[in-house]
């Protein structure tokens, strides 16, 4: 059932009692709650927002960014509403790789306390939640007869071209699964309820309650046997750090690890890959699996090469030429560049880079558009049909260049870095809570991995003889850091570890130093992988649900089954 705390009366001062309290109703929190439908566990799911986007809720995400060139404002890429940031995601899904879970001596702090298999067994169910069809991530099997080759005859030793990504429609978890939660008698969804403090039972390793506020001024709490924080990579750190009533430095932060190792991805577009083979043999687009899912190949640097070269995990995709440079001569690319004001912040930033539109640039792009009016109009009509009018959306722009010359879209792991941090800022939000402050930092190895991988690809192409990769090493920092931390992948701030020295949470996701507080979501990932995080967030949430269901807590003295 749903309860809107903004309009509910009599909440002030009350304590709701339940068995499991999940704080955060994004993909992780909703997926976790779904697993308890029809079980004997009463669940309260705390959603710090409304059913739809509301700017006064979104404003609660405001915070400080140490270097604005290196990180987007904290109100972007995140949605404070029921369904969380799935309201804005692109839908790209692929599993983490086995190497991501291994100790890699050349990467400090890279190690999961669990094996890949521990997560991998939840990928099929996670794939169902993300609506990506069959959980098949191999190009040879995803489509009957196999997917089209990326470049006919190109079989590099260093790269696996058969790894694919599958695309969610993209699923808005609030809209997709809200009705199921609403109908479940044992699930109580609190809308517009904002967690501000996690409180221990007096002098105990047990968490007793979480204090909630509404913008209307009500303060109340939820007492539970167990709590899960699922508020995303930034808010998880903020809530733990701000919970200072019982622990001076914040819950779970006895070793000053909460908020550290804040990771995103190293991503950008660069280089020029010109194929000398006929354009008909080159394919960089999407194909649809029989179940309707869009699938796409990528070039994944093989794990043995990562070990040999001592670098991080990385993938590359063939990409259309850079938009802002009118030299590409494509009307449609120029049209999209000129449409910048009409495209959402997140996508506009990705597509346009930081280039400002000058009058001269405008004219050159306008000339491109006017030169290919039918081509451009046809593309736009097709785009409207396959994206605007479709429930399973065509995932991204695919435009083959006129000259068989592509750029490379690079998506690389960011290696752990304790100096990359989410901390509490000095400004306060509407509840008097400190805002988050993000100081995202990268390490030399992050860019070195890109450099080495580009050279590896260049060598492979030369050996093959069907294409030539040109790039300027000096371009790498600008290209890979043009956006700074990439997008909305907020990872690592409550990392999993074998011990309190190594992590904030243990292998089960339980916060060290507590008996009954768990974290779900990408905050717990010790490493970022090359993969986008959502599918693994879902798999981890499902794993946590299985863990919570496998061992029931003894009811605590202070709490009890909800009346």
């Amino acid at each position, binding site marked *: 059932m749903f309860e809107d705390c903004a309009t509910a009366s009599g909440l002030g001062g009350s304590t709701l009692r339940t068995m499991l309290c999940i704080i955060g109703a994004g993909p992780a929190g909703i997926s976790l709650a779904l697993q308890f439908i029809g079980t004997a566990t009463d669940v309260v799911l705390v959603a710090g927002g409304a059913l739809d986007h509301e700017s006064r809720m979104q404003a609660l995400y405001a915070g400080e960014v140490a270097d604005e060139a290196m990180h987007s404002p904290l109100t972007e890429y995140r949605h404070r509403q029921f369904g969380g940031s799935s309201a804005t995601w692109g839908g790209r899904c692929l599993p983490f790789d086995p190497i991501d879970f291994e100790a890699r001596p050349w990467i400090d702090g890279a190690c999961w306390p669990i094996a890949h298999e521990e997560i991998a067994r939840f990928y099929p169910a996670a794939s169902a939640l993300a*609506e990506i069809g069959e959980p098949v991530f191999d190009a040879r099997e995803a489509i009957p007869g196999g997917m089209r080759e990326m470049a006919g005859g190109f079989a590099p030793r260093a790269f696996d071209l058969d790894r694919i990504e599958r695309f969610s*429609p993209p699923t808005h978890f609030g*809209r*997709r*699964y*809200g*009705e*199921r939660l609403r*109908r479940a008698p044992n699930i109580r969804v609190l809308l517009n309820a904002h967690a501000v403090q996690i409180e221990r039972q007096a002098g105990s390793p047990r968490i007793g309650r979480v204090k909630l506020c509404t913008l209307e001024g009500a303060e109340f709490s939820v007492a539970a046997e167990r709590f899960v924080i699922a508020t995303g990579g930034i808010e998880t750190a903020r809530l733990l750090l701000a919970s200072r009533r019982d622990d001076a430095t914040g819950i779970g932060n006895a070793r000053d690890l909460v908020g550290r190792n804040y990771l995103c991805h190293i991503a950008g577009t660069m280089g020029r890959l010109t194929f000398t083979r006929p354009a008909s043999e080159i394919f960089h687009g999407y194909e*649809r*699996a*029989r*179940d*309707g*899912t869009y699938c796409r190949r990528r070039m994944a640097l093989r794990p043995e090469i990562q070990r040999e070269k001592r670098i991080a995990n990385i993938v590359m995709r063939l990409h259309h030429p850079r938009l802002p440079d009118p030299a590409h001569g494509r009307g449609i690319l120029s049209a999209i560049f000129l449409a910048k004001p009409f495209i959402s912040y997140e996508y506009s930033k990705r597509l346009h880079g930081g280039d400002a539109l000058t009058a001269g640039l405008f004219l050159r792009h306008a000339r491109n558009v006017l030169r290919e009016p039918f081509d451009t109009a046809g593309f736009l009509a097709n785009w409207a049909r396959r994206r605007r*009018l*479709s*429930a*399973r959306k065509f995932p991204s722009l695919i435009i083959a260049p006129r000259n068989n010359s592509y750029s490379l879209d690079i998506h690389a792991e960011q290696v752990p870095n304790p100096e990359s941090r989410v901390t509490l800022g000095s400004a306060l939000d509407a509840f008097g809570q400190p805002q988050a402050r993000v100081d995202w930092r990268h390490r030399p190895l992050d860019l070195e991995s890109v450099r080495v991988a580009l050279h590896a690809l260049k060598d492979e192409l030369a050996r093959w003889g069907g294409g030539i990769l040109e790039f300027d090493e000096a371009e790498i920092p600008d290209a890979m850091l043009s956006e700074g931390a990439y997008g909305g992948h907020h990872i690592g701030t409550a990392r999993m570890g074998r011990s309190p020295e190594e992590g904030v949470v243990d292998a089960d996701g339980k916060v060290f130093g507590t008996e009954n507080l768990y974290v779900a979501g990408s905050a717990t990932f010790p490493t970022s992988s090359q993969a986008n995080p959502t599918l693994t967030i879902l798999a981890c949430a499902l794993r946590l649900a299985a863990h919570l269901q496998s061992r029931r807590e003894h009811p605590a003295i202070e709490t009890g089954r909800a009346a």
Partner: protein
Amino acid sequence: MITLVAGASGFVGSRVVHALHSRLPGSVRAGLREDRADFARLGICQSIMDAARPATLPPALDGVTHVVNAIMASPAAMIGTTRNLLAAAQAAGVKRFVHLSSIAVFGGQEGLIRDDSPYGADVDAYGAAKIECERLVRASGLEWVILRPALIHGAGSEPWTARIGRLLRQRRLGDLAERGDGLCNLILVEDVVAAILAALDRPEAAGHAFNLADPDPVTWNRYLMDFALEIGATPVHRLPGWQWKVEKLAAIPLKLTAIARDKTKLGSLPVPDAITPGFARLFALDLRYDPAKADRLLGFPRTPHAEGLRRAAIWFASRR
């Protein structure tokens, strides 16, 4: 044992006739309004009868020990035909009367429905007539078994195989997202036939009503996806919100056109299937039928889900 199948030309009735005949030639009598060539070819005994006309029944029931009432009739007609058939069966000294009812007797209930769950309060005219027929059967003094099949699919099923297949091919059904999370309570026609045979045979079934549905139903989304893959309606379409609005607007004109076509005998005029709001709501209904009693007392063999889908798809593909 001689079994009269009343309604022997119908979708279920004809299959029961064939099943009884292949089990033991000579043990079945097909009760129908017009001769069927396929029955005649096999040497199946046919009795021309019309349950709406009581005088036609005694000859059909002469020497019969068991009756299967598989007559399909409108709500207005079915109570009369059932009453007539029951009276004639009693007069003929029939030992067991197997009556095909419907899950429509439960109306729009959700949750777990058992064989002895109360009738729905919100039933439509069809459900109300089915309830009345069940009351007549129970009060008849005959030894009876009531079977309530859920949505019967498989070879020959116009609504649940042919229509669904057409709509999938036309991209009017597919991945329904949050509108398709309801449970899909299908039963394969072969399994309905097997249940009827068990209801004729098993002494312990007497005096019981059974709901016949997949004991482990999948969601509509899963079923539609699997069936679309089986019939090659790929890539499977995910329905956007605007398409549901268009369907809702189109449903009444389509329905009226189809009715007009049937009334004016323009039977060949192709009218697209309507996705009425009632039909669309079905995909979200969260209900299932408890199979425990049917498994215990009827114990009929059930076809695995995947095999049922495969057979339905083969039939669908073989249609003209």
